[in-house]
């Protein structure tokens, strides 16, 4: 496989400086945007994620290189010749991210891994680094596999994926309000992504985009942020704990308990159905929460 530098490594100093800058802004505008134990949990989860990636990253690369042998097209990696392929790869990788991300919120197996990122009740740059430890176990990487079969070199795909990850760092902030209209129309922004992290019924399961918000607009999952409804962050059942380990594994524990205690015919459903699903209807999915919320709203309030 061709070797390319890991852009994330080079971005880390900028991440740290921006974190400190955001803290200073918070000091002036709203001290409650940060909390020491929350920040510690987020950043330790980020560090743990790096360790997990180092442990299993080789296997993902191995799968990618193996699949690339069955490619439909021969695409080179040299930028001057293949610049269009780089652009196309970045674009398609972002579409693959959208598919992954939507599944990560709608299928409990994938959610169990992704929930870590949403488990903070804060929304700041440290939240961006609150990343999964169990992405490989949840098979999250399968969404990118079609790119290798098309023929994009694994090194190119992983480089684009890293750029995608870096882009998503700066949108995890309340320090930026709205960007220029044209930018909000095309790109994922702090405003769009705040909605994604929201637990207000209006904001649940929306704005799955990585870099380009156009996917949400195309596939009907776009919800704009409203000035009259501030976003409440976190997960529907807030953790109520700063435990790093519990944040990393709590949903997996929940799945194990549910599968163990469920009747045989429902066991698999506790893995592949949406988060909140239960065979006896004793819990609420996001769709059920939205329905209940809409039922309690005046008609004009629910028009979007």
């Amino acid at each position: 496989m061709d070797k390319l530098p890991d852009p994330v490594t080079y971005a880390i100093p900028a991440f740290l400086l921006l974190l400190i800058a955001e803290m200073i802004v918070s000091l002036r505008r709203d001290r409650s945007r940060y909390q020491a134990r929350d920040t510690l949990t987020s950043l330790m989860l980020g560090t743990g994620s790096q360790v997990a990636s180092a442990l299993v990253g080789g296997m993902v690369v191995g799968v990618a290189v193996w699949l690339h042998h069955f490619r439909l097209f021969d695409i080179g990696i040299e930028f001057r010749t293949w610049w269009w392929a780089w652009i196309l790869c970045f674009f398609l990788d972002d579409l693959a991210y959208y598919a992954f991300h939507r599944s990560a919120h709608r299928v409990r197996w994938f959610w169990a891994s992704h929930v870590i990122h949403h488990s903070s009740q804060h929304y700041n740059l440290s939240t961006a680094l609150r990343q999964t430890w169990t992405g490989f176990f949840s098979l999250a990487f399968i969404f990118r596999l079609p790119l290798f079969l098309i023929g994009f070199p694994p090194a190119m795909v992983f480089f684009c994926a890293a750029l995608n990850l870096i882009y998503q760092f700066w949108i995890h902030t309340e320090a930026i309000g709205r960007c220029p209209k044209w930018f909000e129309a095309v790109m994922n922004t702090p405003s769009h992504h705040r909605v994604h992290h929201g637990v207000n019924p209006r904001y649940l399961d929306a704005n799955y985009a990585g870099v380009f918000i156009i996917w949400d607009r195309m596939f009907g999952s776009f919800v704009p942020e409203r000035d009259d409804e501030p976003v409440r962050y976190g997960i529907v059942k807030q953790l109520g704990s700063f435990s790093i380990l519990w944040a990393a594994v709590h949903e997996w524990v929940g799945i194990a308990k549910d599968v163990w205690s469920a009747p045989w015919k429902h066991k698999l459903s506790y893995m592949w159905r949406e988060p909140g699903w239960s065979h006896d209807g004793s819990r609420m999915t996001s769709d059920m929460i939205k329905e209940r919320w809409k039922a309690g709203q005046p008609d004009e309030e629910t028009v979007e």
Partner: protein
Amino acid sequence: MTTAFLIQTAASVVAVLFLAWLVKAMGLGSDPRIADADHAIRLAEEAETGFGGVDVARDRAGFAAIVRNGEGRMMLVRAHGNHFAARPVDRQMSARLDKDFLTLTPPERSFGAVTLQLGKEAGVWAARMREIPGG
């Protein structure tokens, strides 16, 4: 794992500890309290859409509250960091009454036990705990 990776990881941990210390040193954070019954009802509603709280037992310091709805179901709300977290009060949650104090312990250990100073209301709410339907 290479030595370089181990050094990088150790450096990350040091940076993480520094940043968490910096948050504290800068005085960031807040000490949220439940201001009154309306606030407690709103927090229960945020925890469970359509909960419809009607009755509240608020801890004297505003650290936590129990909210009861029209159906008799109850919700425990407590401060967590700069925000709040809630859990339904059901038969799995144990309750201990000690004069003016009511301590609720949910089965979820990570959530922790919550002690509410309720004054004379403590006994009333402890009795309500015993009326929770089985499940």
